[in-house]
């Protein structure tokens, strides 16, 4: 661990009871969903982590419970440090408070998570899907979502596929 990162990790561990994991010099801190806004506010204001580089999720289905880890990768530009905060979220009730008030970038990133993983963010100003079309069912980046494909339309199956294609309303 970076020597400058140690006091920061200590503060977060003491104040929020975070657990620590290290891998290849990267520091991952695990906090509870209800603490995330407070943790990020503290890190931004007191410890000068100005940039939220990544807000995304990893699905550990079916090996681990809770199933999702929401990942917040923070970068401090003035101190040249990196820190990763992780929030484990359950499958039954995937809900988190929004952090759009702390980092504006969270707006689109949280919409992407809603779209791709079905994780909801309470208090989000614009909870719509962002990448997939309106009316899409399911959440594509979940591990149990099948990697489907569309059958190509050839002469021999032209009518069969045309019957399944969406067509404009009369």
């Amino acid at each position: 661990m970076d020597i400058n990162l140690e006091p920061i990790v200590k503060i977060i561990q003491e104040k929020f009871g975070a657990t620590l994991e290290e891998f290849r010099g990267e520091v991952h801190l695990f906090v509870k969903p209800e603490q995330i806004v407070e943790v990020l506010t503290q890190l931004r204001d007191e410890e000068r982590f100005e940039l939220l580089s990544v807000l995304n999720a990893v699905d550990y289905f079916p090996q681990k419970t809770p199933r999702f880890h929401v990942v917040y990768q923070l970068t401090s530009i003035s101190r040249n440090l990196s820190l990763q905060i992780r929030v484990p979220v359950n499958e039954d009730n995937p809900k988190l408070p929004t952090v759009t008030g702390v980092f504006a970038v969270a707006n689109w990133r949280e919409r992407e998570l809603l779209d791709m993983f079905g994780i909801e963010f309470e208090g989000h100003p614009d909870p719509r899907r962002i990448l997939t079309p309106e009316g899409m069912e399911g959440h594509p980046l979940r591990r149990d979502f099948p990697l489907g494909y569309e059958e190509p339309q050839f002469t021999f199956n032209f009518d069969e596929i045309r019957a399944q294609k969406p067509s404009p309303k009369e």
Partner: protein
Amino acid sequence: MTQIEEVSIDQFKHLVSERALTGETMLLNMGPQHPSTHGVLRLLLELDGETVVNCIPDIGYLHTGIEKNMEAKTYQKAEVMTDRLDYMNPMGNNLAYVMAVEKLVDLDVPPRAQAIRVILVELQRIASHLVWLGSVGLDLAAMSMFLYCFREREQILDIFELVSGQRMMTTYIRPGGVWRDVPVEFEKAVREFLKTFPKRIDEYEKLLTKNPLFIDRMVGLGILDAKTALSYGVTGPMLRASGVNWDLRKSRPYMGYEQYDFNVPVLTEGDTYARYLVRVQEFRESLKIIEQALNKLPFGPVQSDNRKFVPPPRSEIGVSMEALIHHFKLWTEGFLAPDASIYSAVESPRGELGVLLAGDGGPKPRRVHMRTPSFDNLSVLPELVKGHLVADLVAILASVDIVLGDIDR
């Protein structure tokens, strides 16, 4: 089966001003098919006459499920997907992904491969900025810029064809090194480019930098202050034009960037003209890096000799049983990566291109998330264009330098 639903204003009600609901302001679609949106981007504009009141970007028209597809492929095969991500920067995407894999499995890269990677990625940065410069010119009705820039880009693509056999979807940088050593003609071709290109930059600057029409269209538009930029996760030339000195090549050197002497251009104005100037200066800095890397290009292997991750050369397979086994294992099962997660980032022409890579102990990744800079850079657009004219919106959007493949993934 999907149903086609009628789009009504209801879903955008909370994003537009109240005047739009009474019909006082007009809602206008710009895109998805529009030459100035640099791809398939749709902007829903709320207009008061010619002035933009609100701008709601709508993305996802180019969503191809790259991240999902990568989960179904082995680490080596997933790399071809990264080329398709940001199609102006295939070499840089390869590097970002490959560096993440190397970090996950703890694989070293020989110095010659590192230097080759640096040269190619910097050439790619120039090529990407050239496309940007050409399309900015086109958007502002300076048609000749487009032709000049594509002429020089062609030279770079020829070099890529020389080393990898492909002009765009290169997949040349591989885990543990590069695909094969560069051919003998490579050095001559790059030197030729280094000789001609500085004069070309002078030409571009003569055409645009002091051009009063260009300055009128660019100065003071879309001003972005450092605090807003950081809050919106803006990185790359856009952030540096807003006065934040942050370049991953300098602050967290990778691939031996610390050996090269170059500057990071930083301006404080934060307007479209400053973004233009930063990118033009980056041309010259990239040239400096390429020249140094080419002068110092060390001799030696271009691939790691760790046979658990890098396939053995053809000559070994015929004489060594071990090599044959490794070859077979690597091309059928692939290599195994630990059940852990890492984050690694490089400086792409557009900003911080990061890869969040989680392995599951097997030969396929559990999750690959590409943190693409265009996505975050575009999310700040509504803040930039408020109160500007529609014609200025085109200039501001052009200065953001988005690539839709990068945004929609």
